């Protein structure tokens, strides 16, 4: 721990980071207080619905952060990052499924409901061990990590880049979606995993658990931010940027580009998996729809709107776009896709650096716009 301290201090020297972490800490502390301590009738009361919604946004923000790490700093446009998110989510979902035990509709002590429904006699081998929390947590990291490693190793070694890479990442998540839709796969098919009861013995419906999950999500986001910040500020990060801007030149200078890419891709996939694992207990369901290509591509727009290559921009983008989505799909459902489509076009044509870039250009002195955006999204 003694060696990380100076690194941590160094990271906090950056004013934007300091401000971002301050806002995040405030959010993580104030929102649960407003939910638990302020009485329900008060204007300052944050309902449990809003709390869960914000918790969901925090998970999305972590996901956006993981995408920004590879896209913003290494130029890898992954259109399949939702796959890693969903894998992490499924690992968590499998643990939660095993926790239901005899409280399921069919009351089977071992088998989840959908397996009883399919007339399965025993648990498939890949479900073994998921009754242990530690094992599930290891799988949250390993499942996306190993997939990213194998996929990345194959792709980067043969120098699949640019649009080709984007297309095959999309094919990857599409293939996984088809696979998870099959009942025979043993992941609940169409309906996915749901009806969760408790996590480590804590009731998922209780306000205390929800507040804790919210706080943990914020904590995970903060830690992931520091990790990404550390990675990108280091010498390693400079090589990543070099790969992004001129891959061949970097290779000619003697760097093993594929290893750099592979490493950052795996880190990013693991972060996405953690985001998925935090997401599932808060929304209470994971199904194959999370693998759908459109979900993955939506993540890209969060990052693009916020501003790629800034890390906190991705977080802001995730909050803004998702808040807009929550608002518009409820108020003007027909308008949402026009707006989302428009965001893609506008952000690529006119906002190549996203909102962060815009605010820097409009008001060079004021760089606090990002903070306000987070506050707005949080209300």
């Amino acid at each position, binding site marked *: 721990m003694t060696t990380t301290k100076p690194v941590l201090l160094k990271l906090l020297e950056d004013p934007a980071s300091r401000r971002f972490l301050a806002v995040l800490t405030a959010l993580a502390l104030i929102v649960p207080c407003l939910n638990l301590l302020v009485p329900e009738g008060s204007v300052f009361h944050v309902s449990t619905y809003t709390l869960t919604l914000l918790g969901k946004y925090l998970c999305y923000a972590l996901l956006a952060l993981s995408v920004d790490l590879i896209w913003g700093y290494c130029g890898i446009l992954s259109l399949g990052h939702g796959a890693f998110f969903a894998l992490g989510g499924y690992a968590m979902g499998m643990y939660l499924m095993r926790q239901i035990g005899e409280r399921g509709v069919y009351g089977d002590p071992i088998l989840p409901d959908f397996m009883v429904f399919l007339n399965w006699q025993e648990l498939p081998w890949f479900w073994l061990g998921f009754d242990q929390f530690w094992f599930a947590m290891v799988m949250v990291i390993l499942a996306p990590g190993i997939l990213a490693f194998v996929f990345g190793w*194959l792709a980067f070694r043969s120098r699949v880049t640019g*649009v*080709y890479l984007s297309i*095959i990442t*999309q*094919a990857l998540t599409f293939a996984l979606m*088809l696979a998870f839709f099959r009942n025979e796969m043993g992941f609940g098919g169409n309906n996915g995993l749901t009806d969760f009861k408790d996590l480590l013995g804590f009731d998922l419906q209780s306000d205390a658990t929800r507040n804790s999950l919210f706080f943990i999500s914020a904590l995970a986001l903060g830690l992931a931010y520091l990790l990404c910040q550390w990675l990108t500020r280091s010498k390693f990060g400079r090589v990543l940027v070099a790969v992004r801007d001129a891959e061949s030149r970097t290779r000619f200078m003697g760097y093993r580009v594929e290893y750099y890419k592979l490493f950052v891709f795996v880190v990013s996939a693991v972060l996405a998996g953690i985001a998925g694992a935090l997401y599932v207990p808060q929304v209470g369901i994971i199904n194959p729809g999370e693998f759908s290509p459109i979900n993955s591509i939506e993540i890209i727009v969060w990052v693009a709107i916020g501003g790629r290559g800034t890390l906190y921009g991705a977080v802001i983008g995730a909050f803004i776009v998702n808040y807009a989505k929550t608002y518009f799909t409820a108020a003007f459902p027909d308008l949402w*896709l026009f707006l989302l*489509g428009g965001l893609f*076009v506008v952000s690529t044509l006119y906002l190549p650096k996203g909102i962060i870039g815009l605010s820097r250009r409009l008001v060079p002195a004021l760089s606090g716009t990002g903070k306000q955006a987070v506050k707005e999204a949080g209300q």
Partner: protein
Amino acid sequence: MPLLAADPESAAGTDGLRASLEAMAKASFSEKSALIAGIAGSGDDRARVILEALLDGNLQYRKEDLRPVYLDENEEGDFLVDALTGENLGAISSKRKVKKITINNQLRGELKLAIAGFKLSQADAGARAEAARSIINGPEPELLPLVADAIDVETEPDVRELLGYARASIIVANRIGDADQLIAALSLLGEATDRNVISLVSRFLLKDEEGNYLEKDPRLVEVAEASLNELKAKQSFYQILQNVFFGVSLGSVLLLTAVGLAITFGVMGVINMAHGEMIMIGAYTTYTVQLLMPNLIGASILVAVPMAFLASGAMGILIERLVIRHLYGRPLETLLATFGISLILQQLVRSIYSPLNRSVITPDWMSGSLAINGMFSLTYNRLYIVIFSLLVLLALMLLLKKTHFGLQMRAVTLNRSMASSMGIRTGWIDALTFGLGSGIAGVAGVALSQLTNVGPNLGQAYIIDSFMVVVFGGVGNLFGTLFAAMSLGIANKFAEPFAGAVLAKILILVFIILFIQKYPRGLFAIKGRFVED
């Protein structure tokens, strides 16, 4: 409701038939039997339709004057049609004014026989063959003398052969005659090519619980076994042919959807994520054209092809001029922007046409199937799509190789800056190329509208497959696209029986991911020296 193809001019002969039918209204079952025999023997060409309607229970009579009629309905309510002339007799207030001519099981058998007799004596050889096939599929013992008579007078060797199988089927199915007759019939059936024959023959090979044949005569078992093996071999051969055909038809669809993508990617180096929506626009154009010309469904498809090309092409040029033009050299941004456009187009279609699926009517000349034999048939819509996609590919090749525009396009594909310095207006070429690629996608939409329902997500279902074709085949080479589309289509159809449709698709995707390890630029990449960055 069978509508009568009668022409009211020929009143001659109608009278006898009309009298018989009017008599039938009040007749007893035994009297009806005699009347049916009379109608069947009358040689009247309307008799068959009447008998079929009688068999199906559609033939009614008007209570006031016993006139034989069909009951039909339109949006204004029920109305009557004269069964013999097809004349509209006007609306009726209540269905009670008509009554069905009832039949019993015995009459039903007689009717079937009479109808089969009519079918076997039709003038058209194809129709007679069809009748013989239907007897193979429903070998009822009463038909035997009919078939035997038909064989004697049949002049077409092919139909005669089929009738021979029909007779053998009846003999085998009902165990008519002695063992020698059965053996002859069984061994003849080995040469037949109908699915039903397999089950007929294998009935002789059923075993009891101890594994002994139920059939006591060992000679019959032996012949049946030999015939069955022959039939099974033929069946698996035709199964492979069928799979190839399905694969080729799927490949043609992939070819149509992917070829436009390959062109735009080849020339401009950008992936058009809105390509699927160009397909969708083409499909909706087909739907709209059909709405505009409801009485000419057969011709509407032919009108829809150029319309879809223009609609999607114009949309493509619009997108290129408004958005993509500003993003050159930034392929990833182009990908995102076009994805945004695809969302907008989908929602636009949802707002205009409603989110529900619309079905496009398949014209008569595209429905049905071409039966090569009882085990192998080609559905017309797929057959036409195969032909159509090859025509589109041919037209595209001519455009690329023989026209000035094609020459310029190929020049831009190979070396943009060099082409530009030779005086080619690359901006225009880009716009036209994008329009061309999108237009072909629109044409693909017309073809797809014949296979599936038209909905806002139509394009999405095919877009990833199209990408796979482009990645597999490489860009800038139409043969590469053709090869990739066909091989992926066929591979998909062959993997399906072993792995199921979904798993087959997954396997193909995994294969492609592994494939581009070896050929990162596709199978037919343009040779040359390229330096990125």
